[in-house]
């Protein structure tokens, strides 16, 4: 069985700054992997490498059995990778929560096609799992930071991905909500049979949920669990 995610000797520079210097990370199917490290350690950069929005200048990156260097266009692969970014959109764009979650389906619907009933049903199911069904008719910018984070999680779930990438999903939350959302993520991970890669600065928070934990420090990755 191939790895869901496999990074070998990956180097990334942003401008003249070297961010990743020979990072090795592996995630087998259905594994829950966490990557911890201080701010600026390159955790978000790592996620960008995995979903193909950032190309390393050296190394090997394989996701769901595809060598990312073999493809110029990775849209097909991104449809199978759910991303929950760290920063939720903070502008006042007029979009209802249910519409924002439905965007998770857009990559799979096809050009010039309208979302069908099945797409809406998947969006509603994802909202239920993320615990935001009651906000479905609210505007996204009317929600708190934590609630927006759940909208991002629901959107990623509506995508029905094989891999779930989470960038500091507890940033905007108080400690009680942090535990709640980690429980939700963990349950979803098992129920949906996902490979999950979560990055966080808080190693204590992710420890009990993770099959493996990597520490990202000074551009290098160390397996610490």
């Amino acid at each position: 069985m191939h790895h869901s995610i496999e990074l070998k000797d990956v180097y990334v520079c942003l401008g003249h700054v070297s961010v990743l210097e020979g990072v090795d990370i592996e995630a087998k199917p259905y594994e829950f992997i966490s990557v911890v490290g201080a701010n600026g350690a390159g955790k978000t950069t790592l996620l960008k490498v995995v979903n193909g929005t950032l190309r390393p200048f050296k190394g090997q990156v394989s996701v769901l059995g595809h060598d990312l260097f073999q493809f110029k266009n990775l849209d097909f692969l991104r449809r199978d990778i759910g991303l929950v970014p760290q920063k939720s959109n903070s502008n006042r764009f007029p979009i209802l929560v249910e519409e924002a979650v439905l965007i998770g389906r857009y990559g799979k619907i096809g050009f010039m096609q309208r979302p069908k009933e099945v797409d809406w049903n998947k969006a509603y199911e994802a909202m239920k799992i993320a615990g935001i069904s009651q906000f479905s008719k609210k505007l996204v910018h009317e929600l708190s930071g934590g609630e927006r984070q759940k909208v991002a999680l629901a959107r990623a779930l509506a995508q029905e991905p094989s891999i779930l990438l989470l960038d500091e999903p507890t940033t905007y939350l108080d400690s009680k909500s942090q535990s709640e959302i980690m429980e939700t993520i963990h349950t979803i991970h098992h129920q949906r049979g996902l490979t999950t890669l979560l990055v966080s600065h808080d190693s204590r928070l992710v420890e009990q949920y993770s099959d493996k934990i990597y520490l990202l420090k000074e551009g290098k990755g160390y397996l610490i669990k």
Partner: protein
Amino acid sequence: MSWVQTLNFPFMQHALIAIFFAGIAFPIIGVFVLSLNLIPLRFAMMHVALLGGAIGLFLKVDPLLSGLLFCILSSMALGPISEKMKLGVGILSGYFMTLTLALAFILIYKADIHVLQAFNILWGNILSLSGLDLLFVIGISLIILSIVILFFKEIQAILYDREIALAVGLPEKFFYYLIIFMLGLTIAVSMRLIGALLIDAFVLLPAMAATLISRSLKQTFFFSSLFGLLSGMGGLYFSFVFDIPTSSTIILVASLIIAGCFLFGRGGIQS
């Protein structure tokens, strides 16, 4: 002569048809500008259109055509160049804006272009549209409306969050460049309608008003088109009644609509 009698004149018929199409379609571009924060870019393109117009006057070709050509070229180049150079579109826009403005003034000065002709580029004249001008307005309006109807979901995702649009597997770059391209076309044609300095009357002001009262992107598009149409038609009517310049009157009507929406609205797209 009454307002109704003026409708028998071809120049008035051209103006009405142009306002009808531009009033509906061009504010949609304004919604793109506000959502993607392309304000510096549209400002740069206004100056590119100005340079194109000045070159047209210098070469004795239709300034609309030369302005359109320059806007098309710059709209195709600005997005990819900013991505390639890892510069924000805003920084690059600042560079283009000042450079093109300087070149336009040098050209207007050195080529001895008549001051009224130069002012025509700056202020436009909706009452002197040729048949070709009208065709451009209608054609570009129909292109904008068709793209929005056919690709609504892709555009919605990109306007909401480009990073998310990319992450869910949409060709985000293609649509982003398409939006910049449509912005270039719109600005070039608006220059002829209302002038380089007052382009926002059709592009930005109705969109600003719409964002103050809308709860969805569809509503925003609908209200921005409605307000574009109202301010265009109202501006034309009041300019005739009070004998004042049409472009400026359109701006005044659009500004009144914004004030009304601000009083009864709830915010706007920008945070």
